């Protein structure tokens, strides 16, 4: 019998939790830095189509968003496809003024860089999309991006 052995059951020492706040803060800062606040509350259902030849949108501050899809609250707004700008439903006629206000918000030199991202549900008919495109042409906002999900390249398999 070793004389160093203590009698009785050994108690596991409690794990120190004093560094827990540090870990949590680290996570917190990571999320604070990487976060992008949701732009708007979506009122329309958007199930984007897939495409492979896509480019990433840069300079998020210079992007205007136009949402088109069926309203989520179908009992109140029906099932016809609607356009959403910012937080409200809109008609194609509202797009011109929307682009104009956006143009006043950005630097004059950056106006040609303004891009309109069309977030459109895959089941929407082209008619409403075309109306929007015509309005964008009239408003001289010619750079657009058809927002899609990423599809794996079919040829790479």
């Amino acid at each position, binding site marked *: 019998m070793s004389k160093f052995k203590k009698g009785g059951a050994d108690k596991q020492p409690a794990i120190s939790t004093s560094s827990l706040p540090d870990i949590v803060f680290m996570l917190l800062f990571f*999320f604070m830095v990487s976060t992008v606040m949701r732009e708007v509350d979506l009122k329309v259902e958007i199930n984007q189509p897939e495409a*492979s*030849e896509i480019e990433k949108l840069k300079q998020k501050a210079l992007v205007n968003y136009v949402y088109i899809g069926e309203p989520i609250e179908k009992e109140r707004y029906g099932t016809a496809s609607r356009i959403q700008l910012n937080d409200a439903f809109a008609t194609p006629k509202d797009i011109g003024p929307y682009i104009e206000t956006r143009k006043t918000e950005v630097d004059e030199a950056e106006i040609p860089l303004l891009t309109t991202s069309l977030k459109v549900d895959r089941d929407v008919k082209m*008619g409403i999309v*075309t109306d929007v495109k015509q309005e964008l042409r009239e408003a001289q906002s010619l750079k657009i991006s058809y927002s899609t*999900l990423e599809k794996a390249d079919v040829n790479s398999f």
Partner: protein
Amino acid sequence: MAKRDTPEINAGSMADIAFLLLVFFLVTTTMDSDFGLMRKLPPPVPDDVESPPIKERNVFVVLANAQNKLLVEGEPMEIGQLKDAAKEFIANPKRDKKLPDFKTVDVPFFGKTDVSKQVISLQNDRGTSYELYIQVQNELARAYNELRNELAREKFGKSFDRLKEDGADEKVKAIRTIYPQRISEAEPKNVGE
């Protein structure tokens, strides 16, 4: 007077506060970045301007109707065949008389090169689904990208995307001059909505 010790602030609830903030950011965060097919719309044209005439052999007509069927150069086609058909039209490797004409242009890196006068005309109904429209746009973009990639590999030993990433702007521009992406969209017909 004796200096009193300031009592230490209990930091035990710090973790809770941090957790609260953490949960808030976890909920509001959206990590997704926005991807999309970049296009440039044509500027608005005054009504009295006539569009310049284009020879029929230089135009590749793609029609997408309200029943989500494709008609390419007068023939029905499946979406899977569209890319190869478009590639053959754009490159016209056999110099077919029915396929587009060429114009000789002096391109940096390539010297005098035949550049096709191709234009792809995309027409759709108001009743065409957005998904088909995107697929057609995607297939046409793929046709252009594959041709550009083949040319870039042959000439510079790198894919077109690599050239873009490497910032070889002159080379990218030269390839774009040889295979310019010309997709023209007609005003849609008012059927089937």
